[in-house]
């Protein structure tokens, strides 16, 4: 009897050990979540050749490149597109980059960027909230180059990059304005920051350009990524009568909710057709790869500058996902024609007259907003229902 009992505990202990081993595997394959320096040393071939503490970028040598991600590459949106960009760059330049995922926008970010700065030549930090942390580290490591996505602070060794994705939002607005049957659109918005505000405005202006009666309801979720909350927001909009949605969020939850209700929707950042081909509208997408390849190459050639880069349709950094299969050809053509204007760099969508929600004139007839003015927009155009929380 005793013997049998010990056999059982022994076999249970074996199960436990297997679980521990499994968990270790899971962790180590998680792209070095916890220990960026460990994954950095194993992945970069040049790191082992020059273990000097103060790195510089010798011309002609393969630079050691690192990326900091806010989410997992599997989010199907923002980080997914950055990851595609990194893969493109790796293929173009025949090198490997190091990535650290799930880095919170907190003091942790500064610690991780500092660790990366000790053995890399250029570091891309791919979320707005890393701005101050990146700047702090950039000041401490003058020989390392830093690239920050979406921010406005620079340093001698710190550049910024982003794109005019409002042009793409305008195009999805055209599609939405044509596809709505109730003249009622819904916008699931993450945070009340300029990036969202100019995208909501551009979307609304696009819809109004083809459908004067259209109105756009917005709800704020105050999260970039939470499928359940996003879904609830989308359902609330659908309940209120909206029949075409755009979700400026990182997950496809709104699109899936719209699909179940027979409505249409688009997402953000990346092509989301595969989640619901019938219900898919379109949405702005990012294409970071060429920029990454260009800047890393510039570093090798010694031509890197701390520019504030703003991409667009012209250079391909901003694009629109292929229009969904339910969208008829005449709507597709409308969108294509307008896209051609953006590619040629001809059209500024924030050209007057534009009035805000209260009816006050914000852009006079014949005038246009500059990029800088657009990037700090804090008012909503007429036709948007909802307020910007203060």
């Amino acid at each position, binding site marked *: 009897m005793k013997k049998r009992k010990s056999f059982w*505990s022994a076999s*249970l202990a074996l*199960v*436990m050990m297997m*679980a521990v081993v*499994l*968990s270790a*595997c*899971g*962790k180590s*394959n*998680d792209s070095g*979540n916890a220990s960026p320096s460990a994954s950095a040393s194993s992945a970069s071939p040049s790191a082992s050749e020059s273990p000097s503490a103060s790195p510089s970028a010798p011309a002609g040598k393969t630079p050691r490149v690192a990326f900091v991600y806010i*989410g*997992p590459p*599997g*989010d*199907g949106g923002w980080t*997914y597109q950055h990851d595609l960009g990194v893969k493109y760059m790796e293929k173009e330049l025949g090198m490997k980059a190091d990535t650290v995922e799930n880095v919170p926008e907190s003091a942790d970010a500064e610690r991780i960027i500092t660790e990366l700065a000790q053995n890399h030549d250029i570091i891309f930090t791919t979320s707005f909230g890393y701005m101050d942390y990146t700047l702090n580290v950039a000041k401490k490591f003058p020989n390392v180059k830093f690239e920050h996505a979406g921010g406005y602070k620079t340093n001698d060794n710190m550049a910024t990059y982003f794109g005019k994705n409002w042009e793409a939002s305008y195009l999805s607005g055209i599609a939405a304005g044509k596809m709505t049957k109730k003249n009622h659109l819904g916008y699931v918005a993450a945070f*009340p920051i300029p990036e969202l505000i100019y995208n909501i405005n551009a979307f609304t202006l696009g819809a109004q350009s083809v459908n004067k009666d259209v109105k756009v*309801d917005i*709800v*704020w979720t*105050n*999260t970039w*990524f*939470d*499928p*359940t*909350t996003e*879904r*609830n*927001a989308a*359902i*609330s*909009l659908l*309940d*209120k009568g909206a029949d075409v949605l755009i979700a400026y969020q990182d*997950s*496809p*939850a709104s699109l*899936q909710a719209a699909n179940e209700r027979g409505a249409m929707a688009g997402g953000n950042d990346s092509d989301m057709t*595969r*989640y*619901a081909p019938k219900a898919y509208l379109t949405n702005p997408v990012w294409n970071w790869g060429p920029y990454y390849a260009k800047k890393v190459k510039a570093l090798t050639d010694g031509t890197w500058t701390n520019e504030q880069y703003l991409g667009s349709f012209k250079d391909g950094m901003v694009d629109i996902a292929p229009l969904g299969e339910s969208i008829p050809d005449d709507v597709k053509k409308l969108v294509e024609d307008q896209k051609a204007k953006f590619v040629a760099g001809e059209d500024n969508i924030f050209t007057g007259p534009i009035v805000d929600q209260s009816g006050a004139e914000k852009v006079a007839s014949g005038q246009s907003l500059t990029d800088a003015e657009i990037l700090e927009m804090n008012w909503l155009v007429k036709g948007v*229902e*909802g*307020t910007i*929380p*203060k």
Partner: protein
Amino acid sequence: MELLAQIIAAAISSGTPLLFAALGGILIERSGIIQLGAEGIMLLGAVIACIAFIHTGSLAVTLLAVAGISIALGLVHAFMCVTLRANQTVSGLAMTLFGSGLSAYLGKKVSGTPIPGSVPKLNLNFLDGVPFLGPVFAHLDVLAWFSFVLVVAMHLYIHRTSWGLHLRAIGDNPPTADVMGIRVQTFRYGYVIAGTILIGLAGADMLLVYSPTWTEGMTAGRGWIAVALIIFARWNPVRALFCAYFFGAMDTIGFKIQLIGSEIPSYFLKMIPYAVTILVLMFLGWRSRNKPSGSPQSLGLPYIREQRF
């Protein structure tokens, strides 16, 4: 009235995963074992459901696979807490960390692939014209109906059967239960495993019904809300139902208020569920200040025969 029906329908759909997880937790904690691993178990349940459904396309196989992984996890937790008498809080937290890490790893391949199909709905067409009942109950999925049945069954089981009496005895006073001839260790194993299956099912429900694609970290803290719900419901399945739907409703009510066109900032609305939780807890605490908390009295204490602690 229509608005109320919409809110209740949304409350049921986002409250069902919370309800399953809370029911599982109640079963485990009633037997005297603390359960803090819900977040990790739900994530693993969701990712296994996704992988199994994509590969087999069969709901039955999917649910079996989820049950399988849950049994394994429950066995580990029970072995740690019952046989090894390890710290139950630490074991639960480890399960959460382990679950989020392993689910992220397993999910890499299926991430972004929508599942082929959905959970069948129980269409009660005769309810379609009925106000209120129609929009809420006419087209619920079978898992939601199963959760209703489960609440009633668990309530009857815990409070009306001799087995339920044994369960309460194990959780409140294991030495007495042992003297009564109840095999404390064996039953604790059984309840931890059964409860873990329900928590795994919560994750599967979230994936199959709610958000039909695997996305890393998709529970976004709902496992922790389920843990709080257990205490909120004072280890009672029927109260758990109302608490879970209350939280589900809170998920959606902020958006409804935004859309009415009120001037209340969305940050404030986001705070409502938590503020209301505190208020309700204070109210319940005040009302039952002279009654026992409802917590199993030996919760968190390992039991060894003939040993005092």
